[in-house]
């Protein structure tokens, strides 16, 4: 026993040799499921998603109406070539290899402004996945529109997390603007509920200002632009103190250029005045003139606690770029061709210091055949993990029966429920960004919006039912005309057809008045629904 333990015992020095620092690329290699590469079907979707999200962000930021082209082509068994091309501003040479070749690089992580991507892990993950599964390098063509096209072939060095450039050419003469990426990966192409095609369809709905062309292995699908203006441009904002945790605070204290705590608080955060900053320091027992670099951990903890006790104004909401009702309805209408569509754009509000805004659209009938829920965050469709998502919970929390729709958690009717959350920081439950965390404020906002739309739908449906009931009455007058004419012919000898026509003429003549009475009667019975009774 003792002998054995001596043999197996390792010294601390020995163990330290094993504890090598691993690069983010190596981490990815071992944990691809966290980033949406769990299986070959989902991998294709994730790549398209990252590519299209980037394309939309790039075009929108440059205030260009997006034209996006996607191609998925099977080049070998379970091996696909993917091409994604946009008409964005293009990328300057110095940025190219970093954007595509370095995980966690990007402009989005360090700023607070509504955009699709959030962590900067996206497209470089696809580059890495390609080289891990097929060993193929990624090809990039990009031009900023000055007659020069950069053609780059690259991989990622998984040990150093640095781009490895294999080819770097400049082609002259071709006048275009935009970026095209070509990736060869292992995958399986399917067209089911959580597929590329569904993702593109929902993207087309939530970005009705984009033209999306998709050459799938089964042929071309076009999602045409329905409106020719972009949503308003979101402004960048500074973070709000209510959303700051100890870790972030520590990092920000180290990075700040502010010379005192007071200066740090008033310049690095939004809506913090001198008085509020002084209050926080006083409550935390910190001298407000001390340098941010000299503050201790225990003081940071005190400070974060003190923040909660100080009343601060809400953050500005111009950092949000909601779709607006017009775009929600345009998107739903163009892709679903519904019989009825309604929407609401809730006023912006705040969860834990982060501004957000909920928009809901409900489309009914037309080409919609069954109930479904579309979940979107910053105009990006969420296809997986619906069970964990705040949106699903809010939908299940609505008493649909109250609005004349049967069904328990989701109405038993041909409806598409579209829920969109805009925020500078969407609280996803995991890195693969598939479900929104269930903050009470968020669920409450979604529910209010759903109820508003449900009420409008129920008014529409009761109108239809009313119209049907009234039309049914008219049919009664018409259907007995023939029999009545047959009987009168027997009794009087007059011609059947003539009598029937004459009866129908009376129906025609008197109908207007009767219909008016029926409508009034109906309104009295049902009571006209009142607006604005949110509960």
């Amino acid at each position, binding site marked *: 026993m003792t002998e054995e333990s001596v043999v197996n015992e390792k010294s601390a020095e020995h163990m330290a040799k094993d504890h090598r620092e691993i690069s983010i690329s190596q981490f990815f290699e071992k944990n691809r499921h966290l980033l949406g590469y769990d299986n070959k079907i989902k991998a294709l979707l994730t790549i398209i998603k990252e590519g299209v999200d980037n394309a939309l962000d790039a075009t929108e930021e440059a205030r260009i109406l997006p034209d996006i082209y996607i191609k998925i082509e099977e080049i070998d068994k379970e091996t696909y070539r993917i091409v994604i091309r946009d008409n964005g501003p293009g990328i300057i040479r110095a940025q190219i290899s970093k954007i595509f070749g370095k995980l966690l690089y990007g402009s989005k992580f360090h700023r607070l402004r509504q955009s699709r991507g959030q962590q900067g892990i996206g497209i470089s993950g696809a580059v890495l996945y390609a080289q891990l599964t097929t060993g193929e390098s990624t090809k990039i063509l990009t031009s900023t529109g000055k007659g020069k096209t950069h053609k780059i072939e690259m991989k990622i060095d998984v040990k150093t997390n640095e781009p490895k450039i294999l080819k770097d050419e400049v082609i002259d003469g071709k006048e275009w603007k935009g970026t095209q990426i070509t990736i060869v990966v292992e995958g399986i192409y399917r067209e089911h509920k959580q597929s590329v095609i569904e993702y593109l369809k929902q993207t087309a709905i939530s970005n009705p200002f984009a033209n999306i062309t998709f050459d799938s292995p089964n042929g071309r699908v076009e999602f045409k632009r329905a409106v020719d203006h972009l949503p308003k441009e979101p402004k960048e904002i500074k973070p709000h103190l209510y959303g700051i945790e100890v870790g972030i605070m520590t990092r920000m204290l180290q990075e700040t250029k502010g010379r005192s705590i007071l200066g740090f608080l008033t310049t690095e955060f939004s809506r913090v005045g001198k008085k509020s900053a002084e209050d926080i320091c006083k409550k935390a027992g910190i001298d407000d003139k001390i340098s941010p670099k000299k503050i201790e951990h225990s003081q940071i903890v005190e400070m974060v606690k003190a923040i909660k006790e100080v009343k601060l104004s809400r953050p500005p909401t111009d950092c949000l770029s909601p779709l607006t009702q017009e775009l929600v309805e345009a998107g739903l209408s163009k892709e679903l061709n519904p019989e009825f569509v309604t929407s609401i754009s809730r006023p912006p509000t705040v969860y834990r210091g982060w501004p957000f805004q909920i928009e809901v659209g409900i489309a009914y009938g037309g080409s919609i055949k069954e109930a479904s829920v579309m979940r979107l965050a910053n105009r990006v469709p969420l296809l997986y993990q619906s069970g964990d998502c705040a949106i699903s919970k809010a939908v299940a929390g609505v008493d649909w029966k109250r609005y004349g729709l049967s069904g328990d958690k989701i109405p038993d009717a041909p409806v598409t429920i579209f829920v969109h959350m805009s925020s500078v920081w969407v609280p996803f439950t995991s890195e693969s960004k598939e479900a929104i965390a269930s903050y009470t404020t968020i669920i409450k906002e979604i529910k209010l919006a759903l109820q508003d739309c449900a009420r409008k739908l129920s008014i529409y449906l009761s109108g239809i039912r009313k119209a049907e009931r009234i039309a049914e*009455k008219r049919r*009664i*007058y018409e*259907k*007995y005309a*023939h*029999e*009545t004419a*047959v*009987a*009168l012919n*027997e*009794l*009087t000898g*007059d011609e059947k057809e003539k*009598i029937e026509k*004459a*009866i129908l*003429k*009376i*129906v025609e*003549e*008197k109908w207007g008045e*009767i219909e008016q009475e029926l409508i009034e009667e109906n309104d009295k019975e049902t009571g006209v629904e009142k607006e604005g009774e949110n509960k």
Partner: protein
Amino acid sequence: MNEKEVIGKLSGLGNKVLKDIKSVKDPDIQLPVRALSNIYFDEKSKLIKLGDKTSHRSYMNIAHTRKFMQTLLVAAECKKIIDQNVSTSIRDLYYAVKHTIPGTKENTFEEQSESDPIIEDIEATLNTLREQLHLQADRKGYIAGSLVINDTGDEIDCGKMGSSGWAIPSNAEPDVIKFKKCDAEYVLMVEKDAVWQRLNQDKFWQKQNCLIITGKGQPARGTRRIVNRLHKELNLPIYVLTDADPWGYYIYSVLKQGSINLSFLSDRIGTPKAKFIGLTTMDVEKFGIPKNVTIRLTEGDKKRTVEMLNYVWFKPKEWQDELKNMMKVGYKLELEALSAKGIKYISEKYLPEKINNKEFLP
């Protein structure tokens, strides 16, 4: 009224409606209201009579449209039947007018209970009898006793009809049924067929020199018409024997002064001079009927009895006493209860005693 006149009335109804239609007016048919709101008890004749309130059944009233069509269909069918000089049962008529409305899954009539009241509507509105429309109902009543009649040419002796008696036809109008010879002194109208058979077996009508008739429950119009004519034409007193319960008393009242539904026929089928012989709850004490054959009143019975206390035709003191007694003792009796005193008790003791003592309720 001859057939031409009936056809004239039917066509008249059609022409009136057609005239409305041609002048682009909502066509309607005027009908006497056959409901409690439009009947009255005529003190002079002691009959339930139809008032002069009329209702309009119009095509453009959504609640009437179907019935409007049905009324004309039935009228047209009657005209057809008379034209062909045949007669038919009300059930046949129902099948003749029932068919699917083109372009729908709906029938012109779904059940006979829809066409029967329409026939009564037409009778009432054209002041024409069902028989004149060449319609007849199922036979239901039976008669036995020393009465000779002529039925469409055949001579029938109701004293020689064996155990079943002569079945009274639906149409008992004088042009079909003629009384030839009658030696009976009164008519005993019995609610129940079983009791009628008991009396027939016991040769009650021979011993008592009477006619015995049963309507097998609520008597049909033909049976009521025969009773009416036996009283009117032959001056025979009419005695009615029913169960001692609200339903039995109601049967008596319908026979005597007519019903709300057929109030337009009261003259023909009501017999105001009919008298009630039994059974009553008072008989329990008088005849020593054992209490164990009584039946407790249901809540429905009690409610009905209270209603009857308020009817004009149950206002005579004797009836008020009987109804109040029924409420007090809380039970009712079936005619068969008398068998507790012996199987022939009813024919040999109960009825002869009541008739001899003239112990009737008005």
